[in-house]
């Protein structure tokens, strides 16, 4: 399966070509994205997962390699599906820059998920933030320019930290391959281990939107167009989550014996609190979604930081629910805000009565984010709560605060849903019913997971299994150890 490289190469070639394609860019965007998606599905179906591709024939610890395991392929699919859904809302964009940046983003996020090498991960991360900054700046007004610049400065600073961490890893272990690092890290002394982890973590937390690394979030979301929001959420965000799972859980599993995991618990609780409370008074729907996605990442991080397999499973449920729900919400926001030419949700009053499917999808997504039963988010919340209560005082206090924050979340989300359904005449507004389709399907998936979790449970256990048996399922495959 050496052809897996095409997932990165083809979008990169497309990025170059986009300079010349002009009007064909949109078509190219669809073709490349579909290619990526279909290719990933083929890989999933081919049945020879897990496998390891050594680029240029250099064997694992020395060369650059792409790895495809269960986790990889699921996240690959998530990234590419998000890409496909997001580009459906791209219209009337003529500038080739947008398309170039998009292709770069696609290549970078695919690369982030595929790579088995620390330095490449850094490179792809840098590339994707670069692309996102460019896409955020697309609107060319004051807000988006400021947001993009500030995001760029923050992420460059952060990436330099991770570069330093990579240098340290190379200095101490003499390798940059994930599997090799994982194998050798345990021999490292505690202080160096912690320093490496801290430096790397601090750059990764920027993408994971954890407070206090997340000051870019709200501005970037507010300043960019909806499709870019969906890129940020569905592609960059998902790839970042993949990074967190791969690197924290498989490469640095010893983290849980240090105090860093406790600091992470505290930070994630703060993130949730700040995200939920910040959204309480907000009127701009996009900003609300930004705050909320921050909070959801906090919940995810909380689950990861707890470190029990059940809580990780809960965190993964949260990822799935947040992934689907936010896509739905951005799609709905896009349609509604276009219709009333405002992002203030109060202006969207009454739209739900005329276009109920969009509003119902939004409500379902919101309920899932709130962790309501019969929706996907509930299983995540339930797992995290149960495991948090078993893990001592800090996590108990943490989960209590998290639950109270979810009350706030419930209030502001259902307030929005209510506004959609409120009584008001909205005859002048017109939205094509076609746009209801994707939100509806996504919302139906949320509902299906909520009611019948068996299917997704199986997949998540595969993921957990890989984390649990990392030496067998990941390290040895790559290093071809028997």
């Amino acid at each position, binding site marked *: 399966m050496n052809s897996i490289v095409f997932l990165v190469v083809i979008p990169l070639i497309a990025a170059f070509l986009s300079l010349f394609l002009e009007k064909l860019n949109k078509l190219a965007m669809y073709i490349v994205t579909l290619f990526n998606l279909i290719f990933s599905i083929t890989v999933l179906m081919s049945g020879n997962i897990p496998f390891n591709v050594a680029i240029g024939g250099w064997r694992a610890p020395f060369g650059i390699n792409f790895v495809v395991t269960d986790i990889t392929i699921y996240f690959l699919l998530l990234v590419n599906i998000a890409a496909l859904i997001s580009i459906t809302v791209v219209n009337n964009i003529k500038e080739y820059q947008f398309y170039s940046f998009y292709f770069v983003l696609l290549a970078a996020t695919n690369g982030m998920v595929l790579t088995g090498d620390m330095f490449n991960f850094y490179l792809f991360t840098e590339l994707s933030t670069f692309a996102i900054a460019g896409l955020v700046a697309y609107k060319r007004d004051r807000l988006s320019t*400021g947001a993009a610049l*500030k995001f760029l400065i*923050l992420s460059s*600073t*952060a990436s330099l930290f991770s570069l330093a961490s990579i240098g340290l890893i190379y200095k101490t272990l003499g390798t940059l391959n994930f599997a090799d690092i994982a194998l050798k890290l345990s021999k490292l002394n505690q202080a160096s281990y*912690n*320093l490496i982890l*801290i430096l790397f*973590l*601090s750059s990764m*937390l920027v993408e994971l939107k*954890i*407070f*206090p*690394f997340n*000051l*870019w*979030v*709200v*501005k970037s979301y507010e300043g960019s167009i909806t499709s870019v929001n969906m890129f940020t959420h569905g592609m960059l965000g998902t790839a970042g989550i993949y990074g967190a799972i791969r690197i924290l859980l498989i490469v640095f599993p010893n983290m849980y014996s*240090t*105090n860093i995991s406790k*600091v992470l618990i505290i*930070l994630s609780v703060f993130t949730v609190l700040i995200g939920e*409370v*910040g*959204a*309480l*008074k*907000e009127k701009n729907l996009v900003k609300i979604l930004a705050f909320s996605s921050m909070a959801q990442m906090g919940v995810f991080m909380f689950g990861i930081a707890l470190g029990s397999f*059940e809580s990780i499973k809960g965190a993964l449920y949260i990822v799935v629910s947040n992934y689907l729900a936010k896509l739905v919400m951005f799609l709905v926001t896009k349609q509604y805000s276009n219709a009333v030419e405002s992002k203030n949700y109060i202006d969207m009053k009454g739209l739900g009565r005329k276009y109920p499917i969009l509003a119902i999808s939004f409500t379902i997504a919101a*309920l899932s984010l*709130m962790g*309501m*039963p019969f929706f996907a988010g*509930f299983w995540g919340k*339930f797992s995290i*709560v*149960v495991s948090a*209560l*078993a893990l001592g005082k800090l996590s108990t206090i943490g*989960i209590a605060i998290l*639950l*109270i924050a*979810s*009350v*706030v979340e*419930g*209030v502001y989300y*259902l*307030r929005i849903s*209510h506004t959609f*359904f*409120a*009584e008001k005449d909205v005859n002048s507004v017109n939205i094509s019913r076609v746009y209801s389709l994707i939100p509806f399907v996504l919302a139906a998936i949320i509902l299906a997971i909520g009611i019948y*979790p*068996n299917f997704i*449970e*199986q997949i998540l*256990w595969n993921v957990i299994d890989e984390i649990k048996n990392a030496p067998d399922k990941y390290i040895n495959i790559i290093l071809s150890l028997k």
Partner: protein
Amino acid sequence: MIELLLVPLITTLVLAFFIRYKRITWTLFLAANGFVLYKLYSIYGIWNLSYKVDTAYKILGAELTLGVSNNPIGWYFAFFSALITLLISLFSIGFNKNSRSNVSVIWMLIIFSNLGIFFAQDWVTFFMMWELMGWTSFFAITNGKDKALDGAKYYLALSLFGAALMLIAISVLAQYTGTFQIFASAYGLLQIINSSTKLGIGILLLFLTTFLIKSAIFPFYMWPQKVYSEGPEDYITFMSSVMIKYGIYPMAIFIVPVVGSADLPMILNTGNVLQYTIGYLGAISAILGTILAIFQTDMKKLFAYSSVANMGYILLGFSSMTIVGFEGSLFHVVNHMILKAAIFLTLAAVVFRTGESEMHKLGGLVYRMPLTFMTFLLGIIAAAGIPPLNGFGSKWMIIQALMSKRMVVFAIAMIFASTGAFMYLFRALASIFLGQLPDRYKDVKEVPPTMAIPMFIMMVIMLLTGVVPGVVMKPLTSALKAVGYNVEVASWTTLEGSLKNSVIDLKIVFYMFVAGVIISALMYFFGNKSEKVPQNDNYTAGEYPEEWGVDADRFNYSYAFYQPFKEMFEPLLESVSIDGFFASIGRNFEFLSSTIQGLFKRGEGAVLLFSIGVLLLILGGLII
């Protein structure tokens, strides 16, 4: 068993499809409720019915199983709530003819959760249904109206908060007992209380708080008035009669058995600490609810507080922890369901015809809506707990239980509340229906038959349960017997108290009342004829103000009805303002929210905060 849950669910989908056709939806709604009632009737006595779903979802190392089962007490709650719901849904057909929004879809979903709550076999199922009920209520209350949003938000926040507490409680309990089954975990909790008291009581209090929130007991008594005053009236009828009992049901099957058999420190040899906690909460709710109800000017708010007081009675009955008190409480649950439904239906009818819910703007409606008046009259007689109607029996049993356990404070609170009930109930009666009819309501008509029939049936039911309490007590006592309580199945008309020689036969009470009325009616007919004259004949002393070019002013004494009384209590009520406390929580959150928004709005400190974050991590990782 499963079709009982599936039918409401499928109906919800169908209703959602037909949401724009009111006639179809409400008829379907009625039919579904009819089916539910019939189904419930047919599963009476088959206590081994159950339905289980095995999921692959792993929690606490085991795969989760969700299940519903036909448990006797749950059946008792479910059956009577289904009966009331059926009547309300009949009323709704007429009531919703002109409404702009259609609440039936979300209401059907609530009925689904209603059945789920009453039949849940394990805490997870229970919790799922509980949460479902919380957010669906939010949408049902607002029903597209902005003015209802505040109350609905308040309710939502409280129920989400309660659900969060319950989730914690369920998880901790499952960790220690290893099971999610409700009855098994009750036993487990008892053992936890006996081995490590603090933890056990902590879990119990978490559960209790959740249930108190839903049943509007003391610290959480504010939501009914906020919600009832703005929600759609027919749904509010359902809410005030049925939904407010959701907190009582788990208390009856879980809290009461555990508290009753736990080995805890006693107070004055009459009851343990938790028993008194429950009792005091109930007593405060009963008294506070009564006093606040007396001061309301909005009739829906008045009856909202009356609900608070009634929930207080039920808690008082529980706190006695005797079988009579327990039976009395459960009996009062159904009685309150019936009489509150009857009262709120009449209020809905009044609002339907006049569009007004401030009592002092109404008056004299008895001239125009006699049937509504009669229903209301019987409703308030029942609510006041006056014998030939149904509120009496249960209140009597509760007082008996309290007296036999020598819980004097609670007994006095109970009497205070039920005497106070006369005050607010009569005030509502006088202000809405009696007195002089304002000119603007001259053309008000009696409600149409679809609305009149359920009201009439309500009257019959109230009288029936008042005179023949066996129609409720027989299923109740059989249910209690089926779950293992040591009780005799009650007879049709007698109620048994717990003191010496305290068996009352409500049939005799009714006969005596009839005898009294007959004697008095004889007196009445014995007297000389009376003549029916219009109000002004007497009121303006036989003169005709129109002739002098002035209109006869119509005024009722109804605005500051209990002003002297209010002045007595005002300082007290101002000093204990729970509402202010909750409002200040809301304000603090909003202030915090603006601060956070400010932080994220500028965004230039990103790198600084980033560095702080790194320092924190270093602090955690390297130094500590």
